[in-house]
């Protein structure tokens, strides 16, 4: 059963064994596992359920359909960092690039110090399980675009190691529309993998509902109160109440603490909303003297991992003209001059593993307030990463590169890159972006140091579980979806065990 806003006029009360808030990498996986174990699962999703064949390359319609707040979301700090999250069935897995990486061994070693349950050996079977469901593997060679060839050839030329990406895809032919929904169904987002599996096991899904608060009775979470969203006016309408024996919150590292903070949870450690991590990215756009047509072929077929131990990752990630248009550093005829060479562009990025953390709190008038500042170490990592990536593009014959600094947008030669150190003395000149939000309800073995226990249950509210990227004890330095899926599987298993014991 899949319902949308118009159905709640008639039906406003539901009950289930487990209510799962969110259908992304965390919620869909936890819900599907519980449904497969015979539990009556009910999903609540703020966005709508869109079918694969409705996805198109037009951002003016796709972004409002698929992204939270039409992607007008920002992390405050120095510098401010725009971030994006999915708001549709499948969550951010519907709009991500489809990278499917496990965390590096050194990260899992660090996690095992928090609890052995979070170590490599304990998580191995979970990774294997989710990788099988979402078909993790390398791309078909014919799906790889010319821009990726330039990147890998460039890495080889510079003597850098690179890794062929593992992606959650099945027969991906390189449509390169990942960010606006995969129109071929190849990308195994939870929309086409875990959610159908859950529905097959009898789960129900209430879409176009925003959860407003938790229902707490006798010191236990017993459900949620949500309100329907009118798709035409975007106003909140009728109230819907869902009662359940357990509540799983999987709304992402911003919305999950935002919901939980309302109930003043996380008291034992006061860590709820803290430890916000976001893997900030900086874009380096290279313009070549020849046609590349980077939009023809899969985005991100490989990553340059030569500097990964230093917390720097580099990759290609080409986007449609309208998404690129949103990040142009110029306007008017200069923007046109630049975009006339759209077919000659290669868009690449530098991802930096956080060396510090930020916070999520409840801001004015019902908005989450996210605060994060770049540290001097990360600033230096960005300067180094951008310079290296730009040097690689020049080595590959780029005419010029567009840099992510508001006071130094163009470099036409390697010599001009030397000015980076001179001009970029403060992080405020950086132009960053992020799709990876993590770590605001960290998992742990001790209530005084974490928000949830090792089964994902909130220490100070029995019956309430978290199953999303909020659980991460530290940043992982790679794309997080597979790790979220593995931890959500763990949460479902332990919740199921707890229910069976009860």
């Amino acid at each position, binding site marked *: 059963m899949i319902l949308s806003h118009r159905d709640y006029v008639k039906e406003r009360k539901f009950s289930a064994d487990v209510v799962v808030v969110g259908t992304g990498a965390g919620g869909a996986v936890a819900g599907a596992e519980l449904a497969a174990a015979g539990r009556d699962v009910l999903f609540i999703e703020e966005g709508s359920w869109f079918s694969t064949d409705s996805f198109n390359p037009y951002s003016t319609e796709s972004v409002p359909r698929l992204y939270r707040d039409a992607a007008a979301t920002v992390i405050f700090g120095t510098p401010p960092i725009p971030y994006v999250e999915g708001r549709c069935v499948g969550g951010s897995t519907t709009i991500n690039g489809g990278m499917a990486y496990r965390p590096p061994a050194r990260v899992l070693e660090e996690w095992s110090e928090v609890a052995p349950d979070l170590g490599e050996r304990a998580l191995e079977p979970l990774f294997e399980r989710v990788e099988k469901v979402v078909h993790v593997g390398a791309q078909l060679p014919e799906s790889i675009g010319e821009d990726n060839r330039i990147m890998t050839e460039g890495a080889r030329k510079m003597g850098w190691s690179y890794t062929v990406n593992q992606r959650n895809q099945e027969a991906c032919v390189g449509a390169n529309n990942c960010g606006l929904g995969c129109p*071929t169904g190849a990308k195994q987002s939870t929309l*086409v993998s875990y959610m*159908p599996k859950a529905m097959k096991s009898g789960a129900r899904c209430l879409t176009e509902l925003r959860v407003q608060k938790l229902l707490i009775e006798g010191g236990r979470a017993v459900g949620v109160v949500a309100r329907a969203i009118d798709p035409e006016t975007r106003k909140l309408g009728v109230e819907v109440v869902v009662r359940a024996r357990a509540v799983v919150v999987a709304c992402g590292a911003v919305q999950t603490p935002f919901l939980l903070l309302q109930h003043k949870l996380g008291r034992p450690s006061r860590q709820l909303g803290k430890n916000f991590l976001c893997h900030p990215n900086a874009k380096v756009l290279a313009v070549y003297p020849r046609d590349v047509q980077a939009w023809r072929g899969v985005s991100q077929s490989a990553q340059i991992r030569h500097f990964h131990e230093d917390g720097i990752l580099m990759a290609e990630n080409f986007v449609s003209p309208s998404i690129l248009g949103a*990040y142009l550093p110029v306007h008017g005829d200069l923007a046109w001059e630049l975009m006339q060479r759209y077919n000659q562009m290669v868009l690449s990025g530098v991802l930096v593993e956080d060396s510090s953390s930020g916070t999520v709190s409840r801001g004015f008038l019902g908005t989450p307030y996210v605060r994060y500042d770049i540290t001097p170490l990360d600033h230096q990592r960005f300067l180094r990463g951008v310079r290296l990536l730009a040097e690689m593009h020049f080595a590959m014959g780029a005419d010029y590169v567009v840099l992510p600094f508001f006071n130094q947008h163009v470099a036409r030669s390697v010599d001009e890159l030397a000015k980076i150190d001179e001009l970029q003395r403060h992080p405020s000149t950086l132009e960053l972006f992020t799709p990876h939000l993590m770590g605001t309800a960290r998992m742990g073995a001790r209530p005084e140091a974490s928000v949830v226990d090792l089964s994902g249950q909130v220490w100070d509210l029995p019956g309430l579980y978290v199953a999303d990227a909020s659980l991460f004890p530290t940043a992982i330095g790679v794309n997080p979806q597979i790790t979220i899926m593995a931890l959500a599987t763990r949460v479902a298993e332990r919740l199921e065990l707890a229910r069976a014991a009860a």
Partner: protein
Amino acid sequence: MSDEHGVFEDSRVQRKSLPVSTADGIARHPRDGWKLARPYPLGTRARRTLRALIVTLCPSAPAPSSPELFDRVELHVRHFMSYMHPLAARGFWLCLMLLDWAPRLLFVSVKRLHALGRKRTSELLGEMVHGRFSFLRTLVVAVRGLVLSAYFDQEEVHRAIGYRPVPFLTERRDRRRLLLAPPPVEVRVGGVR
């Protein structure tokens, strides 16, 4: 496995109000029952400023630049505003108002931005975006990002820059169908293949 329609048929669907796309091509507005929200209500003054900003931020001829195209850009910006958090949408409106008054507030001109003319407005926005004040920079970057994103999503602009996504995506979709199709069954007639 990847076909959610098949799953709906199998699942215990009691009532399905889910819109299922009937689009046979790659449509800008898929016919799946989904409605785009109403454009965000803006008053005359805010619309006048937004229009002046659109004319300035978007390229001029020979780039596609008709009044009808600018109408569409304006409409898309207002649609986007409807999907923003109400506080962010209100903030965007305030941003438009502040930009309109910016020439006076910065002692650049006695005229407001909407009356400044394209060239002068462009210079002023350029100065603001490279200036010392991060607040002003953020105002311009926010409006510029939204306007240029809508502009570079238009068909005539796609054609002008050589981006043809629909035939490409259609071809890739067909290619994947072929890849996943079962191998053809051999037919033998009278012992002759």
